[in-house]
């Protein structure tokens, strides 16, 4: 999957980053590692925010987040994603949309 560099795509975007205040977080790392076999967040997120880590868990970095909502919708079985919009004014700011 890493053949296409999503980072290059995100590089074109304008973000107003809210330093050290991620708007989305994984509630319980253990659930990703033990209870979730398919880990759909690692391939469905259009900004590749979720990656598999070496220990079999999932790592989340929200910097490139497009605020689409897919990860929240997709993780309903486990309800392991705490999902919020960033604080007003922060996050993705589309020039074209």
């Amino acid at each position, binding site marked *: 999957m890493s053949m*296409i560099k999503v980072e290059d*795509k995100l590089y*074109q975007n304008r973000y107003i980053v809210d330093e050290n205040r991620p708007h989305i977080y994984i509630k319980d790392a253990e659930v990703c590692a033990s209870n979730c076999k398919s880990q759909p967040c690692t391939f*469905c997120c259009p900004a590749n925010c979720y990656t598999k880590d070496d220990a079999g868990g999932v790592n989340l970095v929200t910097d490139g987040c497009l605020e689409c909502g897919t990860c929240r919708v997709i993780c309903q079985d486990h309800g392991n994603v705490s999902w919020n919009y960033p604080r007003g004014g922060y996050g993705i*700011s589309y020039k*074209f*949309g």
Partner: protein
Amino acid sequence: MVEKFDAIVVGAGPSGNSAAYTLAKGGLKVLQIERGEYSGSKNVQGAIMYADALERIIPDFRDDAPLERHIIEQRIWLLGDDSYIGTNYRSDSFNSERPNRYTIIRAQFDKWFNEKVREAGALVICETTVTELLRDANGKVYGVRTDRENGEVHADVVIMADGVNALLARRADLQPELPPENAALAVKEIHFIDPALIEQRFQVKGDEGVVIEMMGKVTGGMVGTAFLYTNKESLTIGIGCLISDFKERGIAPYKLLEDLKNHPVIKPLIQGGEVKEYAGHLIPEGGYKAVPQVCGDGWMVVGDAAHLNNAAHREGSNLAMTSGRFAAETLIELKKQGKAPVAANLALYKKKLDESFVMKDLKKYKNLPEIMHMSPQFFSAYPDLLNGAAHNLFTVDNVDKKTKENQILKSFAKRRSLFGLVGDAFKLARAFR
């Protein structure tokens, strides 16, 4: 003291802007709250804008709205591996004084619309996220809490125009969470390109534009569609599929977009462009059956937040604008009659929706989402078969036409039983009837 308004509109997309504009024009005291840097900064669309819905709100919008191209040709393509078969409809009559459809760039269009809202007299606050509805012991909504300091504001009615994620209604238990099969995830890019190339490749002049909707191999059998739209100096290319399908198939959305861009019939159309932005957004695709309760004591939901989206015809922004206008007109009427915005009175909004094209169209296609979901062959086998049939028919070789016809029929029957074919045709015809 907490400030009080006649209405608070949450969100400044097409539904929120239509509601706030209409309310302000109607003389109500309106507050509109948008979380983005500006109206449009969070919004993503293809984007085709249907003039009629806007014209009913701002009749002279053409004078200064940022419009890209008016559409004179619509293409619908079924993509095979290296081919397409499809239909084109082009008419010079779309070059009228008041064209019916335009391509737009949402960040610019929404910003313009929001200016109109301010001019009409509404108070607009951006860079502010509404975190929850304020409700009294009986559940009546009386305002919102925002992420600003002392960020509580009160109003007789809150209009939720916060888009497909509809966090406010869901958190207040006014709506269930979106099931993954009721929403599509779409990704798109904007490619800037010399307008002369657009004119040449799409055979247009001036502000004329062409839009292409695509189905077929590029979605890998998932329920979804792709699009390529012409703007003034750019092309928009994107693809979207149901979240449930992405989840099941293990396919990444950006991979589909790359495959689409590299498809042999698409690549030459976008060649030489420079990518300036990559976007992702959900589209509510559950149709009629997924529309939640749209109003209650002190609240209404409009646009994508109310699941008002016609996936069969790729219409959303016009339903959003129309529902926003209806919600506002309802409040204006109630105010005139001195009626309180309780559920029984706000039900007038639902009535307006039911009597309009909004609910009539959604109702017409109420079974389509299920049929599409249960019939992946529409998105894989059929585009393939039709492309193959065309290829066979248009290849002039030593084979006589009758034999070609039989070969084509056989290929169809092999991929899908005759019963299956007839059944599909029947199901589809019924869903569209």
